[in-house]
């Protein structure tokens, strides 16, 4: 590799190829033809409808609470430095190359966040511009602030990762989260009085420049950067790779004790083989923060989707969500049961099937209840509340079938 520009470009292309190959494994032409394309068409039709006739969600959601969505968006990103495990052999000595990769990664992070923020603005436009009648210039300033906050948050979270671990890392984020929440609330308040946006933008710009300088001068960060890069790379891919029966290598781990059940605590009192198999599977899932994040992200997106569609479709699509959640959770089960460690053992087929059914059921139940409550809240058909326990029962049966 002749220089750092080529190395970074090669890493980036390799990452795009990898993510594309993972998606390609799952979304074959059948899925594309029957699910993705119609889904996209339905979305575009619904989006157009938002401009012509605002959905019930717009009336339900006050403008002041839009900050929740903005905070969730801004805090969901993290800077990824494009280093790999093999770099341990060389980059310890060539720190200038590591620094170069950090700088290019930051530039790429800024550009990709710009694109993501434009997409968010596109989605939010019917609500802000159409429904609430905000001016275009205020709208643009707002999303410039959102873009800056997201980039700053991604840098801060990365820097915090280098200082703290585990619960300390979670605690360390709270003050920054509080500050950014205040900034975003303020940014929303300024929609009808946009003059101070310029000052806010300048301040945030200065903070960003300082953070870039700070991050690029941090020393001895290679090992942690590798760990974060692997975690980020496999966050989405891991689940999809299991779908195709491939096992994905886990990122290198730095923490000696798990953050949950730190003293190998029991979930179930009964210690039968299938209960223990279920318990270990659940612990393996719950201790992987990215699994939890992906799971709740899927529920949040589905919940948001349920909230904006017409009431007559909400309960039908809630039932569909039981099968969607079961399929998603089944991937985590396969991740566990097909792992090289578990494959060392000869497990009784009946125990495996029972454990799989229990694992899937325990994990889909919170999602079924949450989405049922969303459907209840937005349809306001309170008499249909009894369907939620019925849904849990259907979920149990579905989980059993999925595990076979």
């Amino acid at each position, binding site marked *: 590799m002749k220089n750092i520009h080529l190395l970074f470009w090669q890493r980036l292309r390799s990452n795009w190829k990898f993510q594309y190959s993972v998606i390609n494994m799952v979304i074959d032409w059948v899925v594309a033809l029957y699910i993705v394309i119609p889904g996209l068409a339905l979305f575009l039709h619904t989006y157009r409808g938002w401009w012509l006739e605002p959905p019930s969600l717009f009336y339900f959601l006050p403008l002041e609470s839009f900050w929740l969505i903005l905070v969730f968006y801004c805090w969901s990103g993290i800077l990824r430095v494009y280093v790999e495990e093999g770099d341990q052999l060389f980059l310890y000595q060539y720190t200038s190359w590591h620094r170069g990769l950090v700088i290019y990664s930051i530039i790429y992070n800024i550009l990709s966040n710009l694109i993501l923020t434009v997409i968010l603005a596109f989605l939010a436009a019917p609500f802000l511009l159409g429904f609430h009648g905000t001016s275009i210039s205020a709208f643009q300033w707002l999303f410039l602030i959102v873009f800056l906050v997201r980039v700053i948050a991604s840098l801060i979270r990365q820097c915090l990762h280098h200082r703290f671990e585990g619960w300390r890392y979670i605690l360390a984020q709270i003050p920054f989260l509080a500050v950014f929440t205040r900034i975003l609330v303020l940014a929303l308040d300024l929609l009808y009085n946009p003059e101070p946006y310029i000052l806010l933008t300048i301040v945030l710009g200065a903070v960003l420049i300082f953070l870039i300088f700070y991050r690029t001068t941090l020393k001895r960060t290679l090992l942690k950067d590798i760990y974060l890069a692997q975690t980020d790379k496999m966050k989405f891919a891991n689940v999809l790779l299991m779908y195709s029966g491939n096992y994905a290598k*886990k990122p290198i*781990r*730095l*923490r*000696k*004790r*798990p953050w949950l059940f*730190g*003293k*190998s605590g029991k979930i179930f009192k009964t*210690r*039968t*083989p299938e209960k*223990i*198999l279920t318990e*270990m599977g659940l*612990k*393996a899932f719950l*201790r*992987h923060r990215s699994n939890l994040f992906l799971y709740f992200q899927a529920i949040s997106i589905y919940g948001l989707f349920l909230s904006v569609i017409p009431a007559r479709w909400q309960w039908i699509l809630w039932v569909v969500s039981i099968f969607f959640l079961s399929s998603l959770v089944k991937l985590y089960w396969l991740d*566990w049961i097909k*792992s*090289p*460690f*578990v494959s*060392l*053992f*000869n*497990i*009784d087929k009946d125990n495996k099937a029972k454990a799989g059914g229990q694992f899937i059921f325990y994990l889909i139940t919170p999602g079924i209840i949450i989405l049922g409550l969303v459907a209840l809240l937005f349809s306001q058909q309170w008499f249909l509340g009894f369907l939620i326990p019925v849904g849990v029962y259907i979920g149990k049966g579905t989980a059993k079938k999925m595990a076979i």
Partner: protein
Amino acid sequence: MDLVQVEIESGGYSQKDQILKDISFTVKAGELVGLIGPNGAGKSTILKAIMGQLPFLKGNIQFQSQDTHYAYIPEQPVLYDNLTLWELLEFAAAVGKINPGVFGPRALELLELFRLDKEKHKLPVTFSKGMQQKVMLILGFLLRPSLYIVDEPFLGLDPHGVRDFLQLINEGRKDGAGILMTTHSLDTAEKICTSFILINEGRIISQGNLEEIRKTSQLPDGSLFDCFIKLVEMQR
């Protein structure tokens, strides 16, 4: 009593590339059989064939009975990254249908023996390689099967670990277990194994106890190391 009879006419990872040829041996109760060969000779491939993991196999692997259980201790530690050491042991015990009342004391005994009792609530993926190797040994010995299949057990083990491993092996043999072990450590193998299978390029070049190996290699007083080198050269 034969715990396993291995008869492999040919076997490999692809139809075209058959690594193993005419492999035939048994492992009896109480035996410690050393499977010895240079890098790439086919030792691990033979172990995979015995465990039914080899994609292409022409031959027969016959266990003593359908209920014969074996424990496989791989060369490279294979662990699950989100489970503590204790949880890994509990999982192995549940799968091996060990009574919960028996599991606790047995697990603690093994952890104390290998000096990992203070690490039981930690994640083994953060251990050093040697400690991870000990975890694999503990997982194997926890189940007390009738057959142990061990791939390069001495790699990464400290001297105490080697001593403890040998102690457990001898206890297992006294209980009637058989052990099939691959190793490059010929000096240790010569001291502890009851019989040897020497392989090179996927074929057996000699097998039997040390006396029989010496006779085949025509080195009456030769060490296992010398006999092995001579036999490989004779094969060439």
